[in-house]
């Protein structure tokens, strides 16, 4: 197993990380039968980068995202945004949960603009901005459709558009492509990279797919099984834009994947 990176001197340091989870621990449940979900997690996300967290089920990945989004409070540790401790980070980041959570009672257009409307932007302005994005998100022609008619891929793209239109710089994506079939997923990964480059967003994404993490990210954190601890950190030194086939078949990628898989296997048995 790879040695734990020294917390005082991170393996890869960003001058001022836009988002940082610092020594976060979290347990659930009552005294006596407490379940430890996260133990001393430190993750940093540099401005404009994509960082992935991979880990087995039960490693507390979603819990970590909920803490960063401000929906849960850590027992110990802190969330830092722009280097400043954020005591109440709710509304500072945009969360895209695992389920698309499109509201069945709203049209696609009203669904993707809900964040803007809650920010106080007028319906007219919100719609105008959203409509301009529909072609890029492959949703043209479905503006006034209800979500039930959308395919899985379209639902995810609508959910991502909703996330981007919240206007936050930091996107927290919880298995954004997890519900998709393999082919759609591959297409969506490349598409997601294009979207990230176009909008210049900072992304922290959670996945259990090692290929996806390495292909999309500048930096990959490997979490252990419960309680989740960081058991590996990897920088992915591939220039952008990345071609899917070239990237995932390169010897360097394969070697890194082997290492991550090994960490995951060891981490889930400890």
């Amino acid at each position, binding site marked *: 197993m790879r040695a734990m990176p020294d917390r005082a001197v991170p393996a890869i340091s960003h001058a001022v990380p836009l988002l940082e989870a610092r020594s976060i621990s979290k347990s659930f449940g009552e005294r006596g039968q407490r379940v430890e979900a996260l133990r001393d997690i430190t993750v940093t996300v540099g401005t404009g980068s994509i960082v992935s967290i991979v880990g087995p089920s039960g490693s507390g990945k979603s819990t970590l995202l*909920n803490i960063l*989004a*401000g*929906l849960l409070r850590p027992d110990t540790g802190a969330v830092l945004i722009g280097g400043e401790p954020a005591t109440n980070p*709710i*509304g500072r*980041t*945009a*969360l895209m*949960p695992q*389920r698309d*959570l499109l*509201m*069945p*009672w*709203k049209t696609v257009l009203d669904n993707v603009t*809900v*964040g803007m409307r*809650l*920010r106080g932007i007028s319906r007219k302005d919100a719609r105008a901005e959203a409509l301009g994005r529909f072609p890029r998100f492959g949703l043209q022609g479905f503006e006034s459709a*209800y979500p*039930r008619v959308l395919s899985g891929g379209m639902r995810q793209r609508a959910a991502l558009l909703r996330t981007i239109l*919240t206007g936050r710089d930091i996107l927290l994506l919880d298995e954004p492509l997890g519900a998709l079939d393999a082919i759609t997923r591959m297409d969506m990964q490349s598409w997601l990279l294009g979207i990230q480059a176009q909008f210049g967003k900072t992304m922290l994404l959670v996945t259990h797919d090692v290929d996806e993490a390495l292909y999309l990210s500048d930096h990959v954190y490997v979490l252990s099984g419960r309680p989740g601890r960081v058991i590996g950190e990897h920088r992915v030194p591939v220039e952008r834009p990345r071609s899917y086939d070239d990237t995932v078949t390169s010897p360097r990628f394969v070697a890194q994947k082997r290492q991550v898989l090994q960490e995951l296997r060891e981490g889930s048995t400890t």
Partner: protein
Amino acid sequence: MIRRTSRYALPALLLVLAGLLWQHVVDTGTIPDFVLPSPAEIWHAAVVDRDLLLSNAVPTLLIAVGGLALALGIGVSLAVAIAYSPPLRAAVYPLVVGSQTVPVLALAPVLALILGYSILPKLVIVCLVCFFPITVNTVDGLRSVDEEMVSLLRTMGAGPIALFREVSLPAALPYLFSGARVAATFSVIGALFGEWAGSYSGLGYLMQQQQAQFDAAGLFAAIAALTLLGIALFGVVTLLERILIPWHRSAGDAVLRGGNE
């Protein structure tokens, strides 16, 4: 699978068959026609009494619709209170359930005694039989809200009022309409109870007159009119549902469309 064309044909066929059997039983004298009038006699009575039926259907319909509207207002308010306030839930929910064990038929004359022969006691009766399905369903709807959706909207800055408007209310509407459809069919029965307890008009009043005159055919014609009122109200509520919550396809909708989505 049932074809679309048969959506009304099958129940109509069943009804016709039952009618023919009924006619046969009365024609052969198995049951005397002053006890059970034949369908032909009932039809005849309905045609002869059509003005009487129509003029008496109006007050009954007004009572049913008015009571239903009252029940919607009170039922939904109670549901919101029960869903959002634990003390109110503890205090009110048992009483709401208890209210349904009150024998409405026995209560109606008492209300008529207190409130007179006006429309008021009848509205109270209709409201009493109608609010329950609305309240119970709406409470279920408000509690069915997806907590993750609430969390997501909170990260977008939604407060309690925005959450109610954007998530809880629309999520509860299909449930509310389920309750309202049941209530719509109850409302006619409630109006009838109210009229029986004391009135000078309405189908309930008409039925009492017919009963006193042993006019069995007229009585059945009035019952048929009441049934039609109930079906019409059910249809109106379902139509409203389709207009107000177009994203939702309900069971009532399936009935109107023939049950084969």
